């Protein structure tokens, strides 16, 4: 059983690697995501330019967060909406619960919101006796399976169609039916969720953007579930985090240009909606109340730290899709709300290094995440900084610390260092395998199974050659 604990990354990933269904699903997802993104980017003249525009827009906002939040609140109020500031996950959950209880709500529909995953909102609402229904198809599937999302934009990416069919048969009492085709599964979910959309008392969605100059929130979806969640029930609650703020519509537009292309390979997702306040008096539909809850959860501190760049993240998922670690172990192995490279940076920042210190090590530093990140976040640099903190706070293993201490002792003493090098060059000759080009190191089968350690050639080592040459000089 994979554990929901970021400290269990290594045992979790060992299990994930053995799980053949998961491996099939991951391989399929990877080729799908990579191909779609590549095509979408090839269609634009200058994607680098779009990336720069998006980064500049986000940076402008991050440099001015407190003022923008005030401006956002002012404009949201003017449109009849209400802003709530939540310092902690518990604050956010309590604000949502208060609204639901005041409205005597029973059925809650939800659009996808990673912030609500971060605060474990569903658990809080269910404990209070509310009936919570996730409406994004992927979120709905994992809700039935009682699992957390394994990808930030495709929460059920680890499930095969057979697994989904099995879940639907178990949870929907609809008798014998053909569920072999994906279209049948989508249709069944549509029918089941339609009733809930119409019956819901409160709709909760996330937000991709908060626009300060207009007091609007923007939601990007392909299914249309976000719009149904926001439009049908009498109350719309938005759960968003601080860094979703942008100055104005043009800046929002700059981010939309890179979001869809990086996430699903679409120039524009099927639905992008800017919502500004509740139903106007003359309108025929829309919610009576609109609440926007902005979660901080340590972000104001991150903004002041050397990790501020991480707040540029727009949750596109490109770094997950291109990560060799993520695409081999999947999202659950990380045991955290946010997986992959972005999650390996965010988890220690949000949950503390004590909880998240293993994750920054779940990287080969190949650098692909930084290459594909539309927001130019230097993910490997941030991971390296976290590893340094891990070491400074003595959270890494004693064995590893001893190795490092010994090495630093050795590396700062040239005489001993050269002696050791000579000893190694000599002994490695005894460890060569039959071909003479690889080494077999005793007690390290785990390492040797996947990788090879090349044997050093028989020639005289560089430093000895160099010394000889120096001696020969007049």
């Amino acid at each position, binding site marked *: 059983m994979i554990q929901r604990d970021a400290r269990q990354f290594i045992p979790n990933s060992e299990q994930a690697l053995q799980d053949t269904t998961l491996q099939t*699903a991951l391989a*399929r997802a990877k080729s*799908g*995501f990579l191909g779609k993104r590549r095509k979408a980017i090839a269609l634009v003249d200058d994607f680098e330019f779009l990336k720069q525009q998006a980064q500049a827009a986000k940076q402008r906002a991050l440099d001015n967060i407190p003022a923008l939040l005030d401006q956002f609140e002012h404009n949201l109020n*003017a*449109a009849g909406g209400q802003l709530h500031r939540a310092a902690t996950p518990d604050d956010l959950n309590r604000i949502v619960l208060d609204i639901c209880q005041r409205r005597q709500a029973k059925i809650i529909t939800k659009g996808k919101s990673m912030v609500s995953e971060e605060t474990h909102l569903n658990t809080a609402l269910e404990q209070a006796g509310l009936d919570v229904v996730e409406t*994004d*198809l*992927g979120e709905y*599937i994992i809700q039935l399976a009682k699992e957390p999302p394994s990808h930030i934009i*495709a929460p059920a990416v680890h*499930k*095969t*169609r057979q697994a*989904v069919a099995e879940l639907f048969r178990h949870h929907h009492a609809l008798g014998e039916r053909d569920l072999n085709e*994906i*279209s049948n*599964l*989508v*249709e069944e*979910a*549509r029918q089941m969720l*339609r009733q809930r959309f*119409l019956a819901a008392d409160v709709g909760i969605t996330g937000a991709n953007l908060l626009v300060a*100059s207009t007091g*609007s929130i923007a939601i990007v979806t*392909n*299914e*249309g*579930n976000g*719009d*149904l969640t926001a*439009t*049908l029930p009498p109350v719309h609650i938005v759960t968003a985090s601080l860094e979703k703020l942008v100055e*104005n*519509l*043009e800046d929002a*537009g700059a981010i*939309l*240009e890179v979001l869809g292309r990086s996430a*699903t390979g*679409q*120039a*524009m*997702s*099927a*639905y*992008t*909606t*800017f*919502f*500004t*306040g*509740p139903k*106007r008096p*003359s*309108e*025929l*539909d*829309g919610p009576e109340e609109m609440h926007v809850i902005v979660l901080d959860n340590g972000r104001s501190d991150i903004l002041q730290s050397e990790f501020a760049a991480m707040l540029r993240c727009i949750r596109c998922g490109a770094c997950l899709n291109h990560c060799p670690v993520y695409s081999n172990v999947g999202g659950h192995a990380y045991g955290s709300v946010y997986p992959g490279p972005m999650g390996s940076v965010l988890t220690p920042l949000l949950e503390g290094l004590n909880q998240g210190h293993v994750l920054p090590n779940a990287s080969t530093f190949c650098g692909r995440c930084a290459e594909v990140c539309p927001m130019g976040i230097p993910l490997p640099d941030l991971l390296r900084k976290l590893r340094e903190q891990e070491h400074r706070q003595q959270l890494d293993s004693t064995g590893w610390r001893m190795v490092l201490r010994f090495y630093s002792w050795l590396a700062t003493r040239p005489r001993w260092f050269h002696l050791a090098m000579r000893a190694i060059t000599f002994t490695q000759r005894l460890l060569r395998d039959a071909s003479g080009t690889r080494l077999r190191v005793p007690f390290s089968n785990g390492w040797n199974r996947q990788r090879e350690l090349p044997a050093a050639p028989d020639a005289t080592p560089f430093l000895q050659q160099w010394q000889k040459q120096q001696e020969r000089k007049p």
Partner: protein
Amino acid sequence: MNTVERFIETLTANAAHVSCIRQLDEAIPLIERFMQEKALPPRLHLSPALQREWPVSNGITLSHGTTDGTHKLCASRAWAGIADTGTLVLLSGPDNPTRLNFLPDYHLVFLRKDQIVADKKAIWQKLEQQGALPRAVNFISGPSRTADIEQTIALGAHGPRFLWVFVEG
């Protein structure tokens, strides 16, 4: 390629259907034929904006207003079209209930040629000029879809399965 042609091309690539008409009444026979082909009851639900300008169409039973999900075919008016991404922009208001954009199986959207712009830049400016935004500004680029199961695209996830755009003029 001009802006209108580009709009039709990109919107079609987004899996929407596009018909060019000179004026509104040319849409009636097309809609009637579509209803027959799909064996749909000849009923059409209009946004108040469209209802006011709708020509006589004896073969189709009309209703108007917002919807509770019982209307299979709904028609609305768009505020703008964006050529480079194949996107419609619809504004909410007393004349344009937003439920019509998401609850029906078939969503019909009417748009005049002169409302089509090259890219989103012009849209942001136009919107900022409006002052306060309407409650909902909907950017719609094709029918509802999902790729949540095995990365395979399926249409009609929660919103309309079929998006039909009439370009007038």
